[in-house]
């Protein structure tokens, strides 16, 4: 078991090094940062001087080693665009993204699981068919279309919800939260729905499929034969066994939510990491781009690692199989 975890950690570290290299290499091919940093009237000497000062003339390996060394200390340099340390920017933006991801994940779970159960239990009811048909739209509509549709209906036409921003935020130490004010909740409704819609339909369909599968198994039939109530069978036995794959998928998808939040954040001008990244790309703001890539993959790698380890902990079969294979 210890060996397995060590193995996974080693793999994660390897992935991170590759990502760091990709971030670094990419940074050398996304335009000339110097021309963005100085005005159009700056002289050639100024440009050369700045290039030298920023170390952009050093050999690539030297720059890469410096990059890794600084990154390990959380130092990604100064943003070319905003002229502020990247670590400060990330620290400011991370709460917005994490809050959005959290709320949309909860939304997807709280709505998706009951709907999944409902459609599994009442397969032939017209309401179930309607839910399934509508959920198709959730899978097939691109995020930005959903966002703009919501804005059109609830902001422009009905004028109920704000079309952009995070509303009023409260600072709790270094963390800003919008979840303590009415304004903040009003602002998060549409972005969270937009971001969570795809996850919701995924969970709905997964729960439904798993549930149907489980309901056909022998132990459910046996439970019925024992005369247990429908409630006890459906929720006590069937749902519990349905949840294992659902939790795995949700865990893995948290990383996906963070990645997809780029689009949602742009549409709603949500001041999180994704928006920061998009603007950095347009400006060839290399320090911010590399920081984002490294951080996003770190989150991915960490969630994967945790899920992997949890899987082994939860499911005894995995451990036994390993031992058998290893000949223990």
């Amino acid at each position: 078991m210890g060996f397995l975890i060590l193995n996974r950690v080693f793999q994660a570290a390897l992935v991170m090094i590759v990502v760091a290299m990709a971030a670094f290499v990419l940074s050398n091919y996304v335009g000339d940062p110097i021309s963005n940093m100085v005005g159009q009237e700056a002289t050639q000497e100024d440009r050369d001087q700045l290039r030298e000062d920023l170390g952009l003339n050093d050999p690539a390996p030297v720059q890469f080693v410096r990059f890794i060394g600084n990154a390990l200390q959380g130092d990604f340099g100064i943003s070319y665009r905003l002229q502020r340390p990247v670590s400060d920017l990330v620290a400011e933006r991370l709460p917005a993204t994490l809050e959005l991801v959290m709320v949309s994940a909860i939304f997807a779970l709280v709505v998706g699981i009951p709907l999944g159960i409902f459609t599994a239990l009442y397969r032939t009811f017209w309401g179930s068919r309607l839910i399934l048909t509508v959920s198709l739209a959730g899978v097939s509509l691109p995020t930005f279309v959903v966002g703009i549709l919501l804005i059109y209906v609830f902001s422009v036409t009905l004028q109920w919800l704000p079309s952009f921003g995070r509303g009023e935020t409260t600072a709790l130490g270094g963390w800003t939260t919008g979840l303590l004010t009415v304004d903040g909740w009003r602002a998060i409704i549409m972005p969270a729905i937009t971001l969570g819609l795809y996850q919701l339909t995924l969970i709905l369909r997964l729960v439904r499929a798993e549930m149907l599968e489980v309901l056909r198994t022998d132990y459910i039939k046996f439970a019925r034969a024992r005369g247990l109530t429908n409630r006890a069978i459906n929720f006590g036995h069937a749902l519990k066994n349905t949840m294992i794959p659902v939790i795995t998928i949700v865990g893995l998808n948290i990383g996906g939510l963070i990645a997809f939040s780029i689009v949602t954040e742009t549409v709603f001008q949500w001041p999180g990491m994704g928006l920061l990244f998009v603007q950095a790309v347009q400006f060839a703001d290399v320090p911010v781009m590399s920081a984002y890539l490294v951080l996003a993959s770190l989150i991915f790698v960490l969630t994967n690692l945790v899920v992997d380890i949890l899987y082994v902990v939860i499911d005894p079969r995995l451990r036994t199989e390993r031992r058998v294979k290893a000949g223990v």
Partner: protein
Amino acid sequence: MTRLFIAICVVMGMVLPAAAQDENVLRWASRGDALTFDPHGQNETPTITALTQVYETLVSRDAALTLMPRLATSWEITEPTVWEFQLREGVTFHDGTPFTAEDVAFSLTRAQGDSSDFRSLINTIESVEVVSDHVVRVHTSVPTPLLVANLTDVFIMSAAWSSTHNVEEAQDFAAGEENYAVRHANGTGPFTLELREPDIRSVFTRFDGWWGLEVFEPHNVDRIIYTPITNDATRVAAILSGEVDFVLDPPLQDLRRLESAPGLQVQQTAQVRTIFFGLDQASDELRSSNIRGANPFADRRVRLAMYQAIDIDAIQSRIMRGLSQPAGVIISPPINGHTAALDTRPGFDPDAARQLMADAGYADGFSVTLDCPNNRYVNDEAICQATVAMLARIGIEVTLDAQPKSLHFPKIDNRETDFYMQGWGVPTLDSEYVFQFLYYTGRRNNGTGYSNARLDELTDLMAQELDEARRNEMIAEAWAIATEDIVFLPLHHQVIVWAVSDEFDQPIVANNTPQFYMGRFTD
């Protein structure tokens, strides 16, 4: 069920609109935020727009772009290389310290520092002499007739405040850290910077101690909240839903929608920015052409043929939706040196163009790559696509390479393009600026490689000529040369469009920099 009902009630309570406010709050949005609040950090229009609410300059421009006194009340040339400024009395900074000549001397010196982005505007200044508390003399190395026009973007800071907060030099990228002035401000202007969250929100509050409240008709804006909204559709939705009162850059495709919306007005005016194509006419052969050993663009007939092959009216009506002024010269009407005669194009005439191509020996045409930005000018990429089709009709096979501005402009700087789109604005409102940057031999922004000894000579002369009539003759001669040589292919002058709530009255200005003390809530 009761619980569900309560939950619905709570949600509905949340979505009800917030209560009306007593103070006049101007909420406005544009695509991109200011890059910094350091007054000498970035010479870029959105940044200057934000700064101009808080900081002031010695000389400013009114809504018609004529020079007007601001922190200086009058100015004159006392000797060929000396400008004397009388400074306004009774002006205080937001922190309460009085404004004096020392602050002017400090600020002009700071703006000339190595890390300042404004230094080339005022690089002829040798020293700033403090004569008394409210008189300064600016000594220049050579006669500088345009000094006053160049000072319209150079903001004045407090010497004491800068020293307290250790910001005596403009922000330096290479330093790897931000300075205090990037997110804090202490100007003399009509609004104070209350809150600065870059890319999220900036809040400005009315400065009751502003001198202008007694000099101009007092404004009634108590607070300004600025939010950058990157996405076009969201920005439009924000003003349609009444969440903002002013959008600086509404997308062209939504103008009709905005015009028909109740409670909104769409204003427009010609901008001081002209869009044009540049052609490398100096290289021995083009990088991207099938013609080897010769440069087709070096032949004036080819350049004229291309000029005549561009159907500018089609571009104006179909791509720009009427929001452009076809141009015959790369300076727009407010700029000194512009004349109606200069600003006429040779007629659109594909037949004449084909004949010119044949005369030049390119009856079968040639191939070339057109480099174009796709996020800098209004509909830049669409204009380039249309041009590709128009040039195909005279046999020029154009490959379009449209890229973000961060990739496009270095190609011009590094001479890696044969044929490119460019746009140019003129903050000094004088032709010299254009000759200096775009026509002068070897200048970085002159991607054409064009070189004309007489034009260079005239440019040097006009920079120092104090006699206005003689200077204007030089400008006219220079334009005659430049136009005759067809160095660039002018397209159009851009038009600025603002979307404003009916409740707010803001005069539109051609430099696209709204000064909100000029605005009024009308209720």
